[in-house]
């Protein structure tokens, strides 16, 4: 009996738990979720010698049902938990929700609040990218590149703490503006911190991006062509590293981005090296944007238009998207004249980038797996929502 049971159960089991076909050449590795080289997810990798034959990403270990939770909370109470998927980039993941609710409720945002929002979003993008870069460094065995970004990140976290009162989960953006005004001498402090931060991250080129071993290792690995990048639906730095000039901040400017000069960094190679360099160039660009915004920001004025308590949206639906640290992050809100959304769909950049992973890893060497995987600018928690 037992001999017959095994093949039957094997077919019924979910993918990844199937009994392995005994093959002399192919070995199946479960990379994760308790593996130093995976995020909160599992990669089922089949290798033939040192070459990856097949890769099956298995996300879903940190699924929290954010979308369902949003349906039973009103528009204001949704703010703190919708930023949980990416607490390191909490301003940017909350941005499309706030813009969408403003459209639904029909409320104008003061000019000063728009600038404060842009500054907070750009600072938060740098904070996220530093964290991502640190992990990319340690995935390649470069421990100094783990420590330096993780330490320099503190500068901007301190700045955001002064602005918002919290170190990572800010809950700063609310429909109608921002929650509280920036501290009195914010412009000077921000300019000084950002200048120093820019000086520090330029040093990363010496130790990391111009390192001959790193270049030899990550150039021409996991090449994603321009056509494939568009066809697979990747966004953000992955798309820009494959030679597509797309940035939501430029193509569909929101708040005050159209008044600022935003330069889009594009590289043509489409390999791991280009994908890891684009976020770093974006950080330098963010510093420029912050300086421009500080210059143009009205020195005084209102930072919030007061909402009615328990605001209701019309019988309407809205989709807004912004450029987050991982690419275009969108939110689709459907309202049925109730204080809470009827349906809320988060469309994060991480999940779109993950789709490219099996195609990129096929035929690569096992040693390239962490470099390709993490260069996709993927955050497991955001992909699972």
């Amino acid at each position: 009996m037992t001999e017959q049971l095994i093949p039957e159960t094997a077919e019924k089991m979910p993918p990844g738990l199937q009994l392995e076909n005994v093959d002399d050449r192919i070995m199946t590795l479960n990379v994760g979720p308790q593996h130093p080289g995976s995020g909160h997810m599992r990669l089922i990798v089949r290798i033939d010698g040192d070459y990856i034959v097949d890769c099956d990403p298995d996300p879903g270990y940190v699924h929290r049902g954010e979308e369902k939770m949003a349906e039973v909370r009103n528009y204001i109470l949704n703010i703190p938990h919708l930023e949980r998927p990416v607490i390191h980039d909490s301003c940017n993941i909350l941005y499309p929700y706030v813009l969408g609710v403003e459209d639904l409720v029909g409320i104008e945002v003061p000019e000063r609040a728009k600038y404060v929002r842009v500054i907070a979003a750009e600072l938060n993008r740098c904070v996220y990218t530093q964290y991502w870069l640190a992990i990319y460094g340690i995935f390649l065995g470069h421990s100094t590149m783990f420590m330096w970004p993780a330490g320099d990140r503190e500068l901007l976290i301190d700045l955001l703490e002064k602005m918002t009162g919290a170190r990572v989960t800010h809950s700063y953006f609310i429909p109608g503006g921002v929650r509280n005004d920036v501290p009195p001498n914010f412009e000077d402090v921000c300019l000084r911190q950002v200048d120093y931060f820019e000086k520090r991250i330029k040093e990363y080129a010496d130790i990391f991006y111009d390192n001959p071993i790193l270049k030899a290792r990550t150039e021409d690995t996991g090449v994603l062509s321009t056509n494939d990048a568009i066809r697979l639906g990747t966004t953000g730095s992955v798309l820009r590293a494959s030679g597509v000039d797309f940035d939501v901040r430029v193509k569909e400017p929101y708040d005050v981005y159209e008044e600022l000069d935003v330069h889009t960094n594009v590289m043509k190679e489409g390999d791991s090296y280009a994908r890891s360099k684009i976020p770093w160039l974006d950080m330098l660009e963010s510093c420029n944007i912050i300086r421009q915004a500080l210059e143009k920001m009205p020195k005084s004025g209102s930072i919030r238009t007061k909402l009615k308590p328990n605001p209701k949206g019309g019988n309407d639906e809205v989709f807004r998207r912004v450029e987050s640290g991982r690419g275009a992050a969108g939110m689709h809100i459907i309202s049925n004249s109730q204080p809470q959304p009827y349906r809320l769909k988060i469309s994060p950049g991480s999940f779109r980038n993950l789709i490219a992973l099996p195609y990129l890893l096929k035929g690569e060497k096992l040693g390239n797996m962490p470099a390709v995987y993490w260069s996709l600018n993927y955050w497991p928690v955001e992909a699972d929502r």
Partner: protein
Amino acid sequence: MSVIAPKFRLAYFLKSVIDNIFWIIILVTLIAIPAIQIVLFYMDLPVIEGELLTAFLAFTWLFHPDMAIPLVKSLIHSDLFRIAAFPGFGFAALIAAGTIFVERKMLAKLQLRVGPFYCGKVEGILQLAADGLKLISKEIIIPAKADKPIFWVAPILFVGTAAAFVSLIPVAPGGWVVADLDVGLIAVFAVIGFFPIITILSAWSANSKYPFIGGIRALHQMVSFEIPLILSLLGVVILTGTLNLNEIVESQASFPWIIFMPIGAIVFFTAMLAELERIPFDLPEAESEIVAGWLTEFSGMMYGLVQLGSYVKLFAFAALFVTIFLGGWTGPVIWPPLDEQIITEGLPISDFRGQPLLTVSTPGLPLFDEDPNEWILQKHGLLEYTTGQLFFSGVIWFVLKTVAVIFFILLPRGVFPRIRIDMLLHIGWYKLIGLAFVNIFIALGLLYAGVLGPEGIF
């Protein structure tokens, strides 16, 4: 199901302490003391100054100044002391412990953090002891389908092989080496050849996927870098005409070989990094790819033993580099600068009026003289340096050079990422072997041009 830690109760604590003391007393009286007596009964004890040494006599002499020095001297010159303590394993383990501490602090300074900080109050100096205690107290878990005898013995074999490597390195003039072999360099190659075997045995016996991949990687890496490693040392052998490491050191009294063979030194250093599995060649332990490589299934003190072995191996490789390319223990006599009489008779200390207060005895130096009266000869100008002075100076030079080489081994960890296995093999088989042959041809050219060698101008 969660397990709640029981409350601390003094009575239980005292009971456990008393239990431990009870069992120690029982085991010592029933097993250890009879065993020592049996060993003493069959052991040939040395005859010192015409008297047969017994345990009672030894304790009596230990407090007698005239007799303590010959007693300690006979201990120092015994084989057990050499293997376990000074030129052998204890010395290497001490430097290995220092290396771990320096590595952690140096890397921390490079990466803008503080490193170990709290343990031992002063810059975390006791962190290593704390880590060792933690490892000893952890449970040893062995995979269910492991090949248990080989899995158990692999860490011990690893440390033993590293210790065997250390025993071939001359540390000071006057035969301060555990095994002074005429085929010393061949013996070194033989010992180095054991490491891949132990690695693949431990990796395969764990019966787990990640250790297996790590073991195969280690095998590829170590076997392919052994060839440039051996070839890069042949230039020195051609020029000195000997395989004895002591004679190779003595041949560098006027200049170290690195001056004439920088290419060989670079090849040896690179191959050494690969043999030691240091970054950028730490593929067998690549964390983000294969968890911890062939160390994945080791837990508790088994892991600690492998780490100890790898740092002892690091010291041994650095010492081999120093011995062959940097002149080993040769160097000007720099210590002790004190008058010999002060050292033998003590340092007089006076109070502020200039009246002698007390004499601080600083024994130690005559301990390492072959003849305890050498300092009298030196006083009358019959002897330039006593053997004790040469010994101390040699050890200081050796340790300084070794520490410098260890520093350069540790440094790439802060600067380089890990490389890939195909790049590694490409470096080993194409570049390093070619450079090693270039080095051999340079050595042959120097030999036949008459610059170096038996009839050379140097």
